[in-house]
């Protein structure tokens, strides 16, 4: 029962599989077994948000889930945001243009937390953006440019839709 188990899931639209002990954290499975190192492991106890991914369409912390729980799930990680030709997602583009990252450690989690919130509220105020990204810690930027980028990214996404 603590022996390795098979895990099959969909990651960024591709069927993937792996085998690991039940105690393996989902973030470690994503990074080590699937080789997708864009998802970062920071605090490993659910506080910093660096490991945030889309789990069945909603943002969740992958450091406080076990990989075995994701059997059959659909994940989207930062690697799945850009288009296949490398064209950045509008939110990534906005982060690029607004200099919303320095070391970049928090960026995958920031992007996913922001996109998750925009699904609920596509036109957030600055206060609402601050509230939403309070789910992710950034030790470099001071957040100002991240807030600007999320605002701009949200506008670009709305413009692309209409």
């Amino acid at each position, binding site marked *: 029962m*603590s022996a390795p188990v098979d895990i099959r899931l969909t990651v960024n639209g591709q069927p993937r599989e792996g085998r690991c002990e*039940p*105690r393996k954290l989902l973030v470690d499975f994503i990074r080590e077994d699937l080789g997708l190192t864009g998802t970062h492991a920071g605090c*490993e106890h659910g506080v910093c*948000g660096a490991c945030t991914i889309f789990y069945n369409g909603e943002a969740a912390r992958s450091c406080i889930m076990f990989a075995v729980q994701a059997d059959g799930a659909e994940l989207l990680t930062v690697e799945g945001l850009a288009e296949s030709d490398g064209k950045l997602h509008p939110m990534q583009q906005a982060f690029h243009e607004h200099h919303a990252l320095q070391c970049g450690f928090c960026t995958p989690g920031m992007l996913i*937390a922001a996109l998750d919130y925009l699904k609920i509220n596509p036109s957030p105020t600055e206060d609402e953006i601050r509230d939403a990204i309070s789910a992710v810690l950034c030790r470099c930027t001071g957040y100002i440019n991240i807030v600007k980028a999320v605002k701009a990214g949200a506008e670009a996404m709305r413009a692309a839709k209409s």
Partner: protein
Amino acid sequence: MKPAKFDYHCPATVDEAIAVLGRYQGEARILAGGQSLVPMMNFRLATPAAIIDLNRIRGLDQTEVTDGTVRIGAMARQRRLEFAPLVAEGLPLLTEALRWVGHLPTRTRGTIGGSIAHADPAAEIPMVLQALAGEVVARGPEGERCIAAPDLFVAPLTTALGFDEILTEVRLPAMPPEAGYAIEEFARRKGDFAIAAIAVMLVRDGERCTTARLATAGIGPVPVRLLDAEAILKERGLGEAAVAAAAQRAAELVEPMADHNASADFRRHLTGVLTRRAILKARDRQNVRSG
């Protein structure tokens, strides 16, 4: 920062889960949303022999209203409930409380039953269970029993649930439509654990206050109702002087903890301040709601 080895069980039914729980004689832990348990396991503050994962049991996340009681399956995700019209209508105090629970990405996984069974002294959902005089359903080898909020919370991270019992449902009496309500919380950062929080529900009839509910989180070892402070509002109404008296009484009633976040004195002070603010907010909201 990685969990120790454990046996992993993923039962398909509650009965199966109870049977496995019994086999481990208290050495197993139930995994609901995992937003508190897994961090503890990562730190190895918890090293259970077995994990019994409830996430694949069907039907444990249903919400329905029967006879004025909102019955919420223990595995209902906090995020689902936060946006559920049924909750917004019948339990707006819960909707408001959920916005204070962690962050949106933790509410994706976190469950209502998990938060209550974990019984963190700073958690908002147990405070709402107290404020609304709710109860939980516990199922064990002998069958089901109901545990009322005041009997449930024993000590920090400790409830009256037996080691072979599973919390399966949360029952909250629907709030009167004319009720005013509010939550006031003090924390260092958005989404952090509450250093002190107060939940209020009021029903007013002209100058009189016919129902007053005050409950705490983060202040003492367990969430409590502040009955004597409620009594002041029911006797004296919702004028400035009565509200101030109730707030002062609230500060006297609590048994505040001291830790690295705040001294006991500071928590007592916050209790008074937050109680006053919460009552006033609930009172004004009620005015708006009753037109």
